[in-house]
């Protein structure tokens, strides 16, 4: 029915969970390779709509996503994390840089050429209300991917959809119900079922739990955990909540004003953050333990995040950084590995190893 160009993956083999979902392996070929990714939104002015500037939402970021791992992306509003998510799923086209998925360059592929890739990369959205069409039944919503991709699952669409509903903890009888009959947590489960329909390899989740109540959040986080183990999924989870990110991620990228300022394993990042911004961010999170209220030495950042239209020169964090020097204003610090698996973009890193930065990237 629907034409599929170069069928390289007619059957997507279910990835074996040989690799621990804990870490993925560092030497394995990355599933997703992002280099120098840039997205600027032009700002026009006047009658002639001439461009007077750009919102530098994402401004040159590099990272890999390894098969089987969970990469957490964290940052405050306006840091470009959501834009990044839309770029790597190619819901938006980058202004510059490159994105490789399984070795194939998908940076500027046309929608038609993207179709095979769309099966392997799926997205889960924040808003469990807005992302489900209220006029469609759950069955119709979850089976959409099959229709769009022209895939006929074994045993028929309905059976497969019911299997998916069971997989995400819903009842197969929900097939004919409508979204409004479900609670927020259940709707997010429906969104997850839809994302998993085509057995994707990579799932990008943008704030998957932030609209949910605390007790429901935990249900969804656990569900995503289970599914990763069961189906060998690779996640990129974008969130502003550092506690959630710590819980779900193997590696974490911290973004600030369109840049990755630090990228490290979970343990390294939370135990010995190197970038002052990461340190401040971690210290700002309230801990549910009143006894520790007084003992914590909190770093209070002053002011707000500057505008991404006119980001500060050099290091973008320097305007709020207590360690900023002349150098920070003139030279932009590159993202370099100061320890194995711990990259940071800072001229004056915290917790740095004794010998100063060697640029073995």
């Amino acid at each position, binding site marked *: 029915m629907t034409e599929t160009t170069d069928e390289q993956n007619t059957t997507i083999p279910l990835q074996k969970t040989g690799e621990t979902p804990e870490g993925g392996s560092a030497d394995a070929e990355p599933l997703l390779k992002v280099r120098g990714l840039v997205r600027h939104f032009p700002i026009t002015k006047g009658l002639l709509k001439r461009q007077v500037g750009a919102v530098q939402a994402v401004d040159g970021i590099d990272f890999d996503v390894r098969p089987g791992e969970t990469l957490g992306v964290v940052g405050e509003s306006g840091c470009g994390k959501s834009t990044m998510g839309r770029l790597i799923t190619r819901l938006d086209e980058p202004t510059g840089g490159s994105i490789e998925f399984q070795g194939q360059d998908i940076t500027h592929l046309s929608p038609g050429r993207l179709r095979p890739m769309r099966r392997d990369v799926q997205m889960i959205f924040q808003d469990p209300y807005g992302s489900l069409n209220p006029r469609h039944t759950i069955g119709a919503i979850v089976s959409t991917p099959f229709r769009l991709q022209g895939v006929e699952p074994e045993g028929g669409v309905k059976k497969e959809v019911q299997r998916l509903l069971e997989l995400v903890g819903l009842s197969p009888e929900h097939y004919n119900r409508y979204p409004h009959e479900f609670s927020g947590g259940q709707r997010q489960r429906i969104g997850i079922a839809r994302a998993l329909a085509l057995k994707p390899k990579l799932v990008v989740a943008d704030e998957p739990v932030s609209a949910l109540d605390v007790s429901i959040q935990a249900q969804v986080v656990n569900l995503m955990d289970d599914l990763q183990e069961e189906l060998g999924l690779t996640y990129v989870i974008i969130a502003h909540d550092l506690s959630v990110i710590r819980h779900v991620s193997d590696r974490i990228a911290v973004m600030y004003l369109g840049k990755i300022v630090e990228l490290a394993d979970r343990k390294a990042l939370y135990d010995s953050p190197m970038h002052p911004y990461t340190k401040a961010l971690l210290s700002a999170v309230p801990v549910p333990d*009143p006894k520790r209220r007084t003992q914590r030495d909190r770093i209070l950042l002053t002011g707000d995040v500057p505008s991404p239209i006119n980001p500060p020169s050099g290091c973008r964090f320097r305007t709020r950084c207590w360690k900023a020097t002349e150098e920070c204003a003139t030279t932009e610090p590159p993202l370099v590995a100061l320890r194995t698996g711990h990259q940071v973009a800072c001229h004056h890193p915290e917790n740095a190893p004794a010998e100063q930065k060697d640029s073995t990237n």
Partner: protein
Amino acid sequence: MTDSSEDKNGAAEAADTAGAAAEAGPVAETGAAPAPAGPGKPAAFLEVRDLKVHFPTDDGLVKSVDGLTFSLEKGKTLGIVGESGSGKSVTSLAVMGLHRASRRQRSKVTMSGEIWLDGKELVGADPDEVRRLRGRQMAMIFQDPLSALHPFYTVGSQIVEAYRVHHDVDKKTARKRAIEMLDRVGIPQPDKRVDDHPHQFSGGMRQRAMIAMALVNNPELLIADEPTTALDVTVQAQILDLIRDLQKEFGSAVIIITHDLGVVAELADDLLVMYGGRCVERGPAERVFAAPQHPYTWGLLGSMPRIDRDQTDRLIPVKGSPPSLINVPSGCAFNPRCPYADVPKDNLTRTVRPELRQVDGGHFSACHMAQEERERIWTEEIAPKL
């Protein structure tokens, strides 16, 4: 999710025209005599006794708050914690006398119980009298400062207005006071920013301006409804610090309403956990965090990923979803989600509503399980997993 959205409507629909209020006077208000039926004038600065706020809707009676009792002294902070639909926001609006605001005035809200503020009873009081207390003796800040500030008026003029409602001064004096307050809450160049409109402020600045507006009349009670939920974490830290500092300075009583146990732990002296329109646990914050006495509180703690622990274990979620406030489960409202619902004998949890019982000094819990049983479960089963 129907229940919670209704609750939100109820909360949003919470104030009435003074005129219409007088006309459409809710049933309960006429019933409540100014003289309290209970033990009389309380000693505490704020005392709420058996507060009930019910909203009739087409689908049935929404019991947003269904029998809530607590008290608060000046200089102290009470944290009210709960999920959407727990009735925490309606509680705060009821204290402010703003619960009646309604787009559809046909839905006549009923409120009963007592709210004593500094020796005055507010539930049975004349709405106009309560209005005169609002903004002066009690003030409130809201979740989203962008929508809570009027987009057409400058920040300064909105603060000036708040001041002049209760102070008979000219505009110039009030403006000076507004600049002084903006300066106090940490807005740089307050004499210039005073003439800016809210959309020219950043999110954190707006919340600071809201706080300046709330504190302009030195209120003795400040209610903060999810004051940092819409803000980034670094800004949240700034705002929480500001609230703490200002409280020290002004010595006011603060109620902070939130779903985030971290925020409560940061600020609150006392903690009140709400579920299904009722209080399930209340007590000094340190004690509640150290030895919580209700399965729902355990559930909240188990559901939260912790920033301070490298936790690779699974979270312990609460099964199911929050109850509908129209059809609150009989017995203990939490029983359908409680893993220990069958521990008490004789199906007690499903038939009898548990009353708040004292655990120890000032710490109360509404659970049918025996205290020893709860303590055993907490120390042996829950605490090790957190």
